[in-house]
C-alpha cells in the first residue's frame, strides 16, 4: 500500500517528463505538411472539376457534330463525328473513377459505359421507334458503346447507307441523337452540382469514415481499377473463364479502340492517385509511412502504373484481334494490373485507414 500511495507524485513527475520528451520529439520532425482536406481540395479543383468540364465540353461538341451528321450524313461529317466521339470517350476515361456524389446520383457510370453493347437490342429499339432509354434493360443499348456500334459497325458505305437510304434511316438518326442528348443532359447537372454546393461539401467531408470523401475516392479508385483489370482485359482475354476467350467483349469493339481507351483510363487512374501536380494519395502514403522506409509504397505503385501503361501501350489495337493472335501479351498486362490492384486494395487501403463500412470495429 505504501508503494501505491507514493505513486501519485511519481506519476505527476513521469507525466511531466513524458510531455517534455513528446514536445522535443515533435520539434525534430520535418515531414512535409499533409492533410486530407488539402488533398480533397486539390482533387476537386485541379483534377475532378477540370476533367468534368472537359468531358462536358466534348459532349456539347459531340452533340453539335451529331446534328451536323444527321442533317447531312456523308463521309466527311461521319469522320468529324467519329473523331469527336473518340475525344469524348477518352475524356470519359478521366472521369469514370469519380463515381460518387452527383455522378453516382445520376448513375453516370452505368449509363455511359456498360459494355459489351447489345447490337440486337439497339436494332430493335430503332425499328420500334419507341423506347425508354432510362430503363435498366436498355443499359446495354445506350452510352458510348452504343454510339460506337452505330458509328463503326460495318464498312463506311454500309454505315452511311443505314443513315441515308435505309427505310429506318430516320429512326436511326433519331436514336443516335437521343443517345448523345441523353448523355449531355445527364452530365450537365453533374458538373453544375460540382460547380455549386457539392465542391464545398466534398472538401469538408475530410474524415476517414465511410461517408468521407477520401473513402469515396479510394473505394471508387480501386473499383475502377478492377473494372479495367476484369472487364476491359480479363474477361475478353479469358482470365475469367480459364482461357476461353471472348474477343467481342472488349470495350469499343466496333471502333477497335479498346487498348487506347484502357491506356487513357490508366492515365486517369494515375492522376487520381497522384492528384496531378498537387496533393494526392501518393503524398498521403508518404506522410503515413515511417521515415525509415526504404522504398515507399507510393513509388511501388507509381512504378507499377508505369509498367502497366507501357505494356498496355505495346498491345496493338484492335484488342479483339490481339487476343486471338497474341493472347499471352494480353495476359501479361492482366498480371501486371493484378499486381497494381493488390497494392491498392491491400497495402494502400490498410495504410490509409479509410473505412469501407459503418460497422463498429475493434480491430479484429
Amino acid at each position, binding site marked *: 500500500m505504501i508503494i501505491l*500511495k507514493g505513486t501519485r507524485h511519481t506519476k505527476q513527475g513521469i507525466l511531466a517528463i513524458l510531455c517534455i520528451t513528446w514536445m522535443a520529439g*515533435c520539434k525534430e520532425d520535418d515531414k512535409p505538411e499533409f492533410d486530407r482536406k488539402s488533398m480533397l481540395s486539390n482533387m476537386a479543383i485541379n483534377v475532378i472539376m477540370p476533367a468534368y468540364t472537359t468531358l462536358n465540353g466534348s459532349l456539347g461538341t459531340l452533340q453539335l457534330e451529331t446534328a451536323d451528321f444527321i442533317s447531312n450524313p456523308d463521309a466527311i461529317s461521319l469522320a468529324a463525328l467519329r473523331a469527336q466521339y473518340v475525344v469524348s470517350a477518352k475524356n470519359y476515361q478521366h472521369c469514370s473513377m469519380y463515381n460518387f456524389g452527383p455522378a453516382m446520383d445520376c448513375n453516370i457510370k452505368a449509363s455511359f459505359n456498360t459494355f459489351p453493347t447489345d447490337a440486337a437490342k439497339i436494332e430493335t429499339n430503332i425499328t420500334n421507334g419507341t423506347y425508354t432509354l432510362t430503363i435498366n434493360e436498355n443499359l446495354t443499348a445506350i452510352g458510348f458503346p452504343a454510339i460506337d456500334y452505330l458509328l463503326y459497325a460495318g464498312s463506311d458505305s454500309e454505315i452511311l447507307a443505314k443513315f441515308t437510304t435505309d427505310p429506318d434511316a430516320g429512326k436511326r438518326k433519331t436514336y443516335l441523337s437521343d443517345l448523345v442528348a441523353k448523355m449531355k443532359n445527364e452530365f450537365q447537372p453533374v458538373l453544375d452540382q460540382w460547380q455549386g454546393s457539392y465542391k464545398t461539401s466534398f472538401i469538408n467531408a475530410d474524415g*476517414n469514415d465511410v461517408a468521407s470523401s477520401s473513402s469515396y475516392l479510394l473505394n471508387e479508385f480501386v473499383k475502377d481499377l478492377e473494372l479495367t483489370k*476484369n472487364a476491359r482485359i480479363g474477361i475478353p482475354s479469358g482470365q475469367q473463364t*480459364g482461357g476461353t476467350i*471472348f474477343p467481342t467483349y472488349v470495350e469499343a469493339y466496333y471502333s477497335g479502340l479498346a487498348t487506347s481507351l484502357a491506356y487513357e483510363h490508366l492515365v486517369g487512374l494515375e492522376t487520381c492517385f497522384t492528384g496531378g501536380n498537387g496533393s494526392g494519395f501518393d503524398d498521403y502514403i508518404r506522410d503515413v509511412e*515511417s521515415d525509415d522506409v526504404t522504398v515507399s509504397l507510393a513509388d511501388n505503385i507509381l512504378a507499377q502504373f508505369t509498367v502497366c501503361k507501357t505494356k498496355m501501350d505495346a498491345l496493338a489495337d484492335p484488342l479483339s484481334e490481339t487476343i486471338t493472335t497474341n493472347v499471352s501479351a494480353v495476359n501479361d498486362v492482366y498480371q501486371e494490373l493484378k499486381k497494381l490492384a*493488390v497494392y491498392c486494395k491491400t497495402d494502400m487501403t490498410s495504410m490509409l485507414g479509410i473505412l469501407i463500412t459503418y460497422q463498429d470495429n475493434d480491430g*479484429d
Partner: protein
Amino acid sequence: MTAINSLIVRIGRFFDWHREVPAASLAFYRILFGALMLFSTLRFLLNGWVYDFYIAPRFHFAYLGFEWIPYPNPTVLYFIFVVLILACIGITLGFFYRISAIAFFFLFTYVELLDKTTYLNHYYFVSLIAFILIFVPANKYFSLDSYYNFVPAQKTIPNWSIAILKFQIAVVYVFAGIAKLEPDWLIEAQPLKYWLHTAHHWPLFGDLLKEDFTAYFFSWFGCLYDLLIVFFLLNKCTRNYAYGVVVIFHVMTWLLFPIGVFPWVMIAATTIFLSAAFHEKALRFLGKFFSGKQEQRTYTYLVRPNFKKQINVLFAIFITLQLLIPFRYLLYPGNVFWTEQGYRFSWRVMLMEKSGYAEFYLTDPKTKAAWKVDTYNHLTSLQEKMMSTQPDMILQYAHHLQQVYADTTILLGDKKLVFKDPEVHAEIYVTLNGRPSQLYVAKKYNLAVLKNNLSNRYWLEDFKE
C-alpha cells in the same frame, strides 16, 4: 507486516464468495447495463444495421458448431429486436428481471451467432455479462420486482454476485494486456501508427497524432493500462483515480477510433469497482424521481437456501473456461495473427490491421469449365473484407461457392460453362500490420474439399515476417 496482513485479509474477503454485501452495487450495475444495452440496441436498429448485417447478405458465415442455428426471416428478426428492447427495459427497471435477463442473453447471443462477419469482442463481453446477470439477484433492491413484492426486497446480496462481475472485467483487461505483449504492438507500434494517423485533421492534436512517438506512447501506455488497471481499481486507495483514468482512456479511444459503444460499455462496466457507498448515493439520487417510495420498503433478511456448493462448482467451471479459452492459440503452430487460430474470444482488441485481396476460381475437371467468381455477387462488401483475411471464412465461402455452382450452367454469349462438381481454388494476398502484401492462399488447394474445423491450417502460405 501489518500491510501484508491487511492485504491477506483483504484478499481473503474478496474470495469469500458467500459473505453479504450491500445490494445497491448490483442494482446500480443492473440499471446502468440495462440502459446502455437499450441505447446500443436502439442505435443498432436506427443505423439500419439489422438490414445491412442480417437481411441484406445472401450468405451467412455461421460459427463452427453453430451451423444448425435456424436463420430468422426479416419479420422474426425485427421481432427479436423488439423483444430485446423490452428485455433491456425490464433489466433496467428490474421488472420481470429474471425473465428479461434470460431473454436478453439468449436473443442477443443468438443474433451474434448468426454471422461471424460482425464478431466484436465487446459483443462477446456483453453476452458473458448477460449470462452472469441471469444468476445474480440484481432485482432484490431498487427494482419494480421488489416494489411489487414479486421478490422479497433485500438490502444485502452475497458477495459472489459482485465478485464474478469484477472477475469478468479483469479477464477482459488482463488478457487484452497480455495480447499486447508482442513485437508488432510494442516494437513497431502497429497498427496504432497507421490508425492514429487517420485523426490527423484534428485541431491542435492532429500533428501530434502523426508522430511515431505518439504511436509508441499509446501502444505502451495502452498495454500497461490493460495489464494493471484492474489492480488499481481493486485497491480502495487508488480506485477513484483509476476510474478517472478509465474514463479518460476510453473516451480517448472513442474519439480516435470507430469502435462504437465499446468504450461506454467499459466505462459502465468498471463502475462495479467503485464503493458501495457511491452506488447507494447514486441510487438515492435516482430514487428522488420516484417520490421516495423506496424508503418505505420493509426489507427482509431471508435465510438463503444453501446453494453454496452448486455456486462454487458453477464458478469453478466458468472461471476455468474464461482463463483457458484465450490461451488456446498456443495449441497451434505459426503466428496467431496470420492463422487466426484461437484469435476470437481471446480479448485481442485493436491489435491488427489486416487487408486482403481474394480471387476465387471454379474449375470442373470433367467438363473443363472454368470461371473466376465475382465475389460482389455473393457477399456484401463487409463480408468480403472480413472473409479475405480470415481463414475459416475463406473455407466457408469456398464451400458455399461449391454448392452454388454445382450442377449449374453459366451462359456467356454463345458459350456454355457447365459445372457438375466444381473445384474451388483461391489466390489471396494479405497485408498484416504494415508489412508488404504477401501470398496468403495459393491456387494449388481445392478449398471445396478442405474441412473447416479446429485442425491446423496447413493450407495457408508461410508467414514472412
